[in-house]
Structure formats: structure tokens, C-alpha cells
């Protein structure tokens, strides 16, 4: 792998940057692999990387039906955080955040992790009580969470509406200093490059059509580029996961919805934190380029198409302006939607399903980006050892029959 650094940039600039190698090799599928991962998004690529890195498996392939990082990895609002309520969630998301914290150096790829802090803003005394409940839960779980006062919140987010016209005045909220944003594409590319350097084949434009089994075990996959044999199959394909595992008789509790994101024209720095407003449901941050990156609720019509609808655009943007009236003069530059795989308790499903050798990592719903390192780490552990990691055990599919849901919205009153 070519090393990236200021020095290498300098050196390559002397040769007009003609000497840079492909970030990852465009691999042709081989006949057989020790492990195959369906889905070339962040989770799939991270899985391949950790398989190669920690479990020394080198005959690994990632199959991507289109271009890598093109699903929800490249369609989210790039927030990373671990401000969760349940110990199970905290363990999962804080593992992820800790891995993110060292990722640029580990991958030798600047993922631009910017830990500018995140405020979940409350508007009623009852919401503040719930914020206290979460902040205390975070502290007990050794995560940096604190209750922030209204005055401190106003200092942190100076443009927020505190005028007499405000429908939802900020009373304060939960502050997590380590939360922030990262560059989403770079996460996918960085993992792809590092995995590839360890020998992983990244195969784009390769759609899986069928899963083969022999007896009660995985035997391989049929793809648009031929048949591939393997006895270990990982699926990290978000909304495409249910239809893949239905082939082997597994039904999942997953509905698919469109989640929209919005980007404004760039402006000079005016918001230095990530903000989620409980009253309006809108959340936003400002990118390094100066664009405001905004999200809100789901389009509540189940769909598999990546198209946003107008009513939600109106709802989210009116929520934004309720928080920041001055932003009414900014213009919507881009808008897009991702199809998110939503589970009843809004927690992911990680673990073995169906035939022996098949493991899935899906159901991240609206929050998969922040979990990429952990999702990959845990799925790699499952594929390599056949067993749950301590952290992923609670997220097994069996929790639904046991009734042991990990429902953050139910526990904390705050939907994640």
C-alpha cells in the first residue's frame, strides 16, 4: 500500500501526481473464498478489513452490486456519537466511536473525524428529566455525557431561536463532547483501501442472485459475475438483507423506509456542533465546506426507492427554521434519500441466521454510519469464530422471541 502523508503528497507533486496507485484493486471474482461478504458499504468493507487484520483471513471477497459506499454509507448525515441509554447500546456504539477515534491513522486515510460535540436539545421540563436520565446512564457506562444548561446551550449554538416567537425554546439538553461528524465516503474508501492492501478482493458491479446451501450449511453464492464457493457468508446489505435471507427461509423483522437528507448552499461557519432538537425532530451540522447538513424524520410510507417526498421536506425544513429563523434565507442545494432498514426496537440485528456459516449485520435503520467500525468488527468476529462477541450477543435475532428488545426510544423517550 502506498503510504499517504504530507511528505508523499509533496513527493508525488514533483511527478505531477502520475504515480498514485488505485486506492483499491478492481478485482475479478475468484472461484472460491474463505469468506464472502455481501454488501460493499461501510459495514461490509469494515468486516473484510477486520477479518484480514485481526483474524488473518486473506481469501476474503466483498461483493458490491454497484459502486462501493453507494448505499446508506454515502447517503447519511455523517454523525458519529454514543449518547445511548442502555448498556448494550452504549457498549456497541462506544466501541464504534473508539474505533473511529483511531481510524484515520489505522487506515492511513483521513476520514476527517471532527469531534465537535453534539447537543440533544430539550424544550420541556419533562424532556429535561429524560435528558438527565440519559446523561446519568451515559456516565454510569463511562461515556462522556453531561446535562447542559440552557445558558451553556445558547453559548454553544448562538444562532438558535430564543426569541419570543420560538415555539420550542431550548431548555438545555444532553451534551456529548466526543460526538461529531466524519467524512462518510472516506470511511468506505479508507476501509476498502486498507482491506485491499491486506489481500481482500473488492468486487464491484457484482450482484448476488442466489445463496447456495449444501445440507444445512452455506455453500456459496450465484452472482451476476458467476458462481463463488464459500462456507462463510456475511451479509451487510441493509435493506436488501431481508430478500436475500428469505431465499434460505429466514424472515426478518425489517421494514424499509426512505430517510431524507438535505444540504444547503455553503456559508461561512455559523454552527460549530451537531444539534438534535427534540421539539422539531430535525438535526443538523455544518460541514467543513460550509454546507448545512440536515435530517429529520422518516418518510412514513414503506418503500424501496431512494426518492424523498415533499411533505417530509416541508416538515424537516420548517422544523429547521423554527430552530434557526435566519436560515430561511439559505437555499436547499441538494436533497436525497436512503432506504433504511428499520427494526421494531430500532436496534441492529447481528448474528447467525439460517444455514450454518451465514451471519448478518443489518437493521441499523437511521443510524448505521456511526456504527460502521463496530458493525464490521463484530461481524468479522462472527465470521471468523462462528461465535458472538460479548457486545453483539444482545443484538441476536433471538431477542424478539425472548421479548428482550433493546428499544432506546422506549427506554429513553428519545428516538435514535
Amino acid at each position, binding site marked *: 500500500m502506498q503510504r499517504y502523508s504530507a511528505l508523499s503528497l509533496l513527493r508525488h507533486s514533483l511527478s505531477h501526481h502520475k504515480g498514485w496507485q*488505485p486506492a483499491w484493486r478492481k478485482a475479478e471474482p475468484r472461484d472460491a473464498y474463505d469468506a464472502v461478504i455481501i454488501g460493499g458499504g461501510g459495514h461490509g468493507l469494515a468486516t473484510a478489513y477486520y477479518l484480514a487484520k485481526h483474524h488473518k483471513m486473506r481469501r476474503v471477497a466483498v461483493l458490491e452490486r454497484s459502486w462501493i459506499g453507494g448505499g446508506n454509507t454515502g447517503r447519511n448525515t455523517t454523525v458519529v456519537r454514543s449518547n445511548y441509554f442502555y448498556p448494550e447500546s452504549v457498549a456497541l456504539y462506544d466501541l464504534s466511536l473508539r474505533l473511529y477515534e483511531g481510524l484515520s491513522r489505522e487506515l492511513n*486515510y483521513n476520514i476527517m473525524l471532527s469531534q465537535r460535540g453534539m447537543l440533544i436539545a430539550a424544550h420541556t421540563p419533562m424532556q429535561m428529566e429524560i435528558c438527565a436520565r440519559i446523561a446519568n446512564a451515559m456516565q454510569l457506562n463511562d461515556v462522556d455525557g453531561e446535562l447542559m444548561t440552557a445558558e451553556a446551550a445558547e453559548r454553544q449554538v448562538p444562532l438558535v431561536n430564543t426569541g419570543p416567537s420560538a415555539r420550542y425554546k431550548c431548555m438545555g439538553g444532553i451534551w456529548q463532547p466526543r460526538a461529531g461528524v466524519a467524512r462518510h465516503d472516506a470511511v468506505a474508501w479508507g476501509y476498502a483501501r486498507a482491506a485491499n492492501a491486506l489481500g481482500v478482493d473488492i468486487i464491484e458491479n457484482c450482484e448476488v442472485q442466489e445463496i447456495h446451501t449444501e445440507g444445512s450449511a452455506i455453500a456459496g453464492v450465484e452472482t451476476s459475475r458467476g458462481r463463488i464457493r464459500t462456507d462463510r457468508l456475511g451479509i451487510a446489505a441493509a435493506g436488501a438483507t431481508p430478500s436475500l435471507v428469505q431465499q434460505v427461509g429466514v424472515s426478518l423483522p425489517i421494514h424499509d423506509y426512505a430517510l431524507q437528507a438535505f444540504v444547503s448552499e455553503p456559508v461561512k461557519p455559523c454552527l460549530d456542533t451537531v444539534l438534535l432538537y427534540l421539539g422539531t425532530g430535525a438535526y443538523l451540522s455544518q460541514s467543513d465546506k460550509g454546507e448545512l447538513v440536515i435530517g429529520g424524520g422518516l418518510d412514513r410510507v414503506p418503500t424501496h426507492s431512494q426518492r424523498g417526498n415533499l411533505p417530509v421536506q416541508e416538515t424537516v425544513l420548517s422544523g429547521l427554521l423554527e430552530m434557526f429563523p435566519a436560515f430561511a434565507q439559505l437555499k436547499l442545494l441538494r436533497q436525497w434519500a436512503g432506504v433504511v432498514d428499520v427494526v421494531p426496537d430500532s436496534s441492529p440485528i447481528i448474528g447467525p441466521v439460517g444455514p450454518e456459516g451465514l451471519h448478518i449485520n443489518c437493521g441499523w435503520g437511521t443510524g448505521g454510519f456511526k456504527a460502521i467500525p463496530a458493525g464490521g468488527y463484530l461481524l468479522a468476529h462472527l465470521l471468523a469464530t462462528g461465535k458472538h462477541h460479548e457486545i453483539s450477543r444482545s443484538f441476536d435475532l433471538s431477542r424478539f422471541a425472548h421479548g428482550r428488545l433493546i428499544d432506546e426510544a422506549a427506554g429513553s423517550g428519545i428516538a435514535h
Partner: protein
Amino acid sequence: MSGWRHDALGSEIDRSQSLSFTFDGRKVAGFQGDTLASALLASEHRILGRSFKYHRPRGLWGFGAEEPNAIFDVQLNGVTHPNQRATTTHLVDGMAARSVNAAPDAARDRFALLDRLHRFLPAGFYYKTFMALGWKLYEPMIRRMAGLGQVDAAFEPPADTPQINATCDLLVIGSGPAGLAAARAAAQVGRAVWLIEDAARLGGSLRWRGGQIGGASWADFATETQADVEANGGRLMTDATIWGAFDHGLFAAWQRCVGAPDRHWRIRPRQVILAAGSIERPLWFANNDLPGVMSAEAAMFFLACHGSLPGRRLLVTTASDRTYAIARAFADAGAHVTVADQRAEAPEIDDIRQIRGANLTEAKGRTGVEGAMVGGIKVPCDTILCAGGVTPTVHLWCQAGGKLDWDPDRDMLVPRPGTAPLTVVGAANGTLDLAAALAEGHAAGGGTGPAPEAETQTTQASAPVRPDPSLPGRQWVDLQNDVTLKDVGLAGREGFTSVEHLKRYTTLGMATDQGRTSNFGGLAAMAAQTGRTIPETGTTTYRPPFQPVPFGVIAGPRRGDLFNPLRRLTLEEAHRDVGARFREYGGWLRPSVYGVGDEVTLAQDEARTARATVGIFDGSPLGKLEVIGPKAAELLDFTGYMRMSTLKPGRARYGFMLSETGVVYDDGVVLRLDETRFIVSASSSHVDGVRFRLEDARQDRIGRDQVFIHDVTAGYVTLTVTGPKARALIADAGIGLPDLPHMGVVEISVGDMPLRVARISFTGDTSFELTVPARHARALRDRLDGALAAQSGRWIGLEAVMILRAEKGFILVGKDTDGLTMPHDLGWGGPRQKRQDEYLGKRALFTPEAKSNMRRQLIGLTVPDGARPIVTGSHLIPRDGTRRSLGFVTSSYHSPTLGHPIALALLEDGRAQMGREIYCFNDGDVRAAQVGPICAVDPAGDRLHG
């Protein structure tokens, strides 16, 4: 070199009205009818901005939404609007425009030095560096450098941005020749046509290309069309952008208004004709970003409409016959014109200097064009007009689901007919010839008879133009985001070859011009580099918005009071009259306390009074659902956790409604008025949810003809009288109460006022809920209010009610329960143990998790006298100090009745911990508390039955 204004040309300016504005602090003159761009083009100002990354000087390129460079913060009437495109900003006297990405101004930008470092800053350089010392160190500096304009923090959006729903028979998008012909044809057969034009005037390309239609000037044709449209019930809108095509045939339009807030239209047409025209592609040569390099169509537009010329010595570069009309127009206007035609076989002309078969390879100059290298020869010029070919404007076609086909003859992507429910005509369909565009529009509009005539251009041959990355020097593909062909080449070498990867890696096409001028060049360069065709390489997805649209327009008037409007009490004014202070509770604006002073003290006083004598509170938001019919009891047995069929008429019973997951969804009292008539009460924020669960059971299980469900919440007002003197007060108020046992309910009347009295308590004291139709609210209130003083009672707010119910251990679903709490966690295990019949959520009460003995159960907490209340939201941890959460405090108050703090909490295996000490953790502090019963006041219930 500078631009200038022609004496005579300029069909759209009014020279009798001079306007004055400033650019970067310097005064500039213009005319009524100018845009900022047309006025600046005619001025001495050439450098209108700086590029984002290298801070290169930039001038005007285009004339519409495609403009990548001339972006200003525009101040007018004390308000600054960031990121205004000069080309789409109508000039107003007194405007102040300031360039972006420049300090102190565009002409003297102190960051211009950055351009010297360009070699170290190739596409995506930031992915390769800034890692060693951490991104945190570099990011603030990069953030300060980035961004275009500045938000005006004081900006207040207009309160009444209209949002209008509309339908129309035929929507014609674009009023160029094809759109006009379509609108006219449809209007003439009697259809109501909406003709929407993005620009300030009708005509599209006719405005600068001109032309005769039907033997008269095009302007006459446009005027006639307008008259035809209006006469047939249609509508014309200029300065209005269709910015999105959405599901099921919805089109969103942003209409810009002068002197009024902009409007947002949601239009559902029965038929749509798209005549959005086309856009000119740029050309690629070294330093093609210098001020003075301009789109030929744009230059023609400014010449024809505003008489503005960018320079005196013009080099027109093209490979198309269509550009010669432009060259000739500039020559006629008095400019010195040279045409450089890439085609060796270009038609020979004799009236203009022409260089054939030679490529323009480089623009010369430092801060503006001073010459050009054409076929190795230096051509002196101060302006280079580029005509790189035509791209149809197909955004809305693609947004509506339409597909594109590559047409190699015309060298463009054109709509594939039948793939979207729109008809595309004219240049948007790749039809550039005027007569042919008119014919297409006419046919699409259902025109009868011959199409309007126009002279067919005899020749419009053109050759495809492609970027040549092998030329020395830097050739820009994306002007605003500073992406060059070298960057595309680097992306290709590094494997970012799919269009989306190219876009994301280089930021190509991601600027505020939305890739209008850059996408084709990037695509063509990547196609060539990877040995693919353009259609093989693919295009990025077209999504709304077609043009950047202000957030305020999309959001509309929903702000402040109109954002999730609060529900108000019928008696709000009456409460205010006696000093009520209001706060939102679950979407309702309700009295929190009455009187002046510290809220906590007032609430304590109110609660104390209610325990000592009597208090009245307004309980109207409590949901009231009438459930009526022969199977009403059967339905409620199914939807409720507690059975209601065993309830006797005239009695009330407390119960839960569960979700099918077994979790307590709501609680409330059910009143049985007679055999077939119940009233189900629901928490104020759960009324709809409860109603839909009841409806579900009615429609899907019990039978819709057996039960009727009616939400009457809004029709009634409930005042609750509570306390030892409650009965006395009601008697003083002239209301004769029959002897009513606890949980008894009766319907009586007082004069003409029908009154339902339910002896139900949420406070632990004798309480009567008095419910009347809303029209009698004031009468009831005045009777009760008049009797208050004699009993030494007072109005009490919700804060006092919260204290009273917490003392008694009465829960608030959603506060004292969470989304996992089951009825047996609250001490209501009876029905779970005993009920044999089916009810909502039953099965889920028997999963392994539901049967676990480690569930969090509701308990009470006490702290020693004199201690302060435990903070709500504190977590309970083991006494050995292990930092493991066993649960949390859900409600906590100082009890005025007991004189010490009380609290409710959910605690793991809580009922087994009675009497034990436990620790409460809050923000690092740990304190002890004792686990006790839920009910802290009057556990025997003497006050209730007294």
C-alpha cells in the same frame, strides 16, 4: 480591459431609469431591467469573485442558474442575502453586492497566493494528509477558508410565506419557442394552460436569438400566446421555477415576488409538457477559468437584452454553425471578432475573420484574458466566447422517472420517449431548430392545423467537442469547486472511475451551480480515460431541487405559533383572569400554577390547600371516547387489560390499555353509563392512539355494526374538585349531588346544564369530575369559582396535581413507565394471572423476558427529613457503589403533606427490596435513599372514601 454598454442594443433595459449600486464597495451604474450581472458586465469590473480552493480570479461565465462564479452577498434595505447569483438577481437601486471567497475584495484577494501551491493540492489531497497531528489541528483553518457567503443572523423570515395547492389541466414548463407553441395550441382548443417561466420574461432563447414566427416578430407571437392562455382560463407565471417533480404527478414551483414573500406552489397537473430548453457546454483549454472567458450564448443574451458587451476584441470558439449568428451579432455591434472553429471543414464565411481546424489551447493573461493560443498562434483578444455544444435540460424529465438515450448524431443525451408521463419538446428534447421546435410544441399541445411557421435554419452542422487532458496547463472542469482535468485524471488513476466516485472524490458538480457547466466535461474526460462511451460511464441522478430553493419557501408559514400548534382550553381566558401561568403539557397549553412568585413554592401551597380544604383544576384535555353498542363491553374487554364487562352501570373502573408487545400504552378510567354505553378516558396525548386501537378492534374483530366509537374530547369541559371540602363546595355552588360512592358516576342536570359527575380521584382525596358540554363551561366555572372563597379553596395548576398524584403513587404513563413497562411491573399482576380470555398484549406478558424476576418494577423512595428531593432522572445503583444501573427515578417532589421528599422509581426486582437502602447517582453525586411502597400518603385510602 473592461466591458461596455452598446448605445442602441438592449431590448429589456429602460435607459431612462438609471440605477446605482455598489460592488465590493465601489459605485456602479445600471438601468432598470438589468440584473447585477448585466450591469457589472458593462462596467470596468471583471473579477467578480475568487475560486473556492485556489482563490483564482473569476469573472462572469453564464446568464442564469448555471453561473458558477459571480456569487455575492447582496445587501438591500438593511438585510444581507448570502450567495446570490448575479445572473438571477434583478438590479434594484441601492443594492450593495460583495464578492465571496475574497478578502478584502475580489480584485485584491490576499489568499491569491494559494494558487501557487496548487501542485500540492490535487483532488482529494485532504484524504492523504492532516493525519499525523490530528485533523483537529487543521480543521478550524479549513472551515474558515471555506463557505461562500455569510448568514445574516438578524434575518427574520416573512411570517406569511404562502403555500398554495393547485391543479391544472396542462402545465407547460418553459416559455421558449416550443413551450409557447405548446401553450398556444392547447389554449386555442380551449384548454386551461399554466405556463411557467423561470426567467423574468417570456421567450426563452427567442429573447437573445430572436426570430420571426408566423411572419411576425417573436415578441408578437409571445404576446398573442399570453392572450390566448389568459382568455382560456389559463395562467402565466414568470420568475417562477418548477423545482421538483414528485411522486404521483406533483410539481413544486417557487415563485419569486417583488414586494411580497415568495410563494410556494404545489401543482398537480393532468398533463405536463416540458420545454426547459438547453444549456451550452464550456470548452476546455489552459486557463479557461480566466475572467473574460464566457459562454457564447450568455454573451449573446447580455448583448441582445441589455446591450452589455464583455470586451472589444472577441475570440469566438466553436465547432458548430449555430455560433456564427452570435459572432455576427457582435461584429455588427462594433466589436472586433475572430471565430476559431475547430472543424477544418467549417463553412467559409467572408465577413468575419475565421480560423478553421485549429484548437484553442490556452488563454493568456493573469487576471483576465489578454490573448489566446489557437493552433499554436497567439491571437490577441480580451474576451473568449465558448460554444462547446448543447446539453438538453432534462432534470425534471429524470426527476419524474424518465430515462435518457445517447444520440451520437446530435452528441447529446435525450429523453427516451415513454419512460415518464411528460412530453418533452424543443431544445430539451434535443430539437434545436426553431421551426422544428415550434412544430413539436404545437403537436404536443394538441394543436389543430399547421404549426406556427419559422424559417428553418439551412445548416446547423456541428462536431462533437471533447476535453483533451494532454494539453499543458490547467484546464478547469468545475469552476466553482476548482476541479481541473488533471483532477479527473488523478481520480481515474486512483480507481474513482464510476461517476458517483468521481463526483465524490473530486467534488465535481457539487457546487451551487449543481454541475450545470461541469458534469459533461468530467463525464467525457472520465469516459475517454477509461475507454468507455459516455452512456457506459453513466450520469449522476437528477433529484430535486432543479435550482437551489430558499428553505423559507419550502417551509412556508409553519413557525412559532403555527409550528405544531398548541391546543387551547375552552376556559383559558377564565384561568388567566385568576392569575394562571401557562405551560405546554403534551401539546396542550394548561395552567401550571396560579399567582405571582416562585413556581415551586406556589405549587407546594396549592397542593397543601387541596389537601387541607379544596382545589379545582381543569381536566378537560383528558380524552373522552364514547363507546356505544351491544358489543361495547366485549370490545373493551379485548382492548383493555382490566375487564370492563363486569362493571356495573353507574360505576367507573381504572384500567390499562396494552400494546400487543405487552407494554402499558395508556391508563385511564372507564365509565359505564348504562348497559351499552361507556366513556373511555385517555391521557391527553394518547387520545388518537387509543381511539385507533378501539377502532381496530371494532372494524377487524367485534364488528363495525355492533359498536360505535366517538371521540367527544373537544366537546366537553371537565373541572375537577378535589379535597376534604369538595362536596361542600359543590353544594355551595348550587349543584345538588346525589350520594355517590367512590368510583360512582351519575348524569344530572342543573337548570339547563347537563352535567356528568364522576367520583374519581387522581389526587388521593375525595374528588368529583364535573363534565359539561363546552357551551356550559363558563357557567359551571363561575358557579364553582364563586364558592371557592367560602371553603378557603383555590384553583390549582398541573404542578400541584403532579405532586398530589405522586404522593399517592398514581402513575403518569410515559413518565413513571417506559416503553418496556408491563402491568405486573406496576403491581397490577392480577388480570395477567387470572384472565382466561383474549386481550390486547396478552401473549407478550408471558415471554421469557416478561416472566423474568429481574424486571424493573415501580417502587417508592424516601429520604430522611430535611434532605432535598432526589433529582428526577437519577439512576439507582447498588449499595456497594458498583456503577451499574438498576433503574432510575421517574418522579420526585417535596411532599407538602408529609413534609419530606418522596419519589417514584423503576427498580430492578424492586418489590423484593422493600425497606432496603439504595444509592441514587446523579452527575457524579451519590446519595442514599430507602425503597418503600409506591403510595406514600394515606395508603389505607381513608381520605378517598371519606
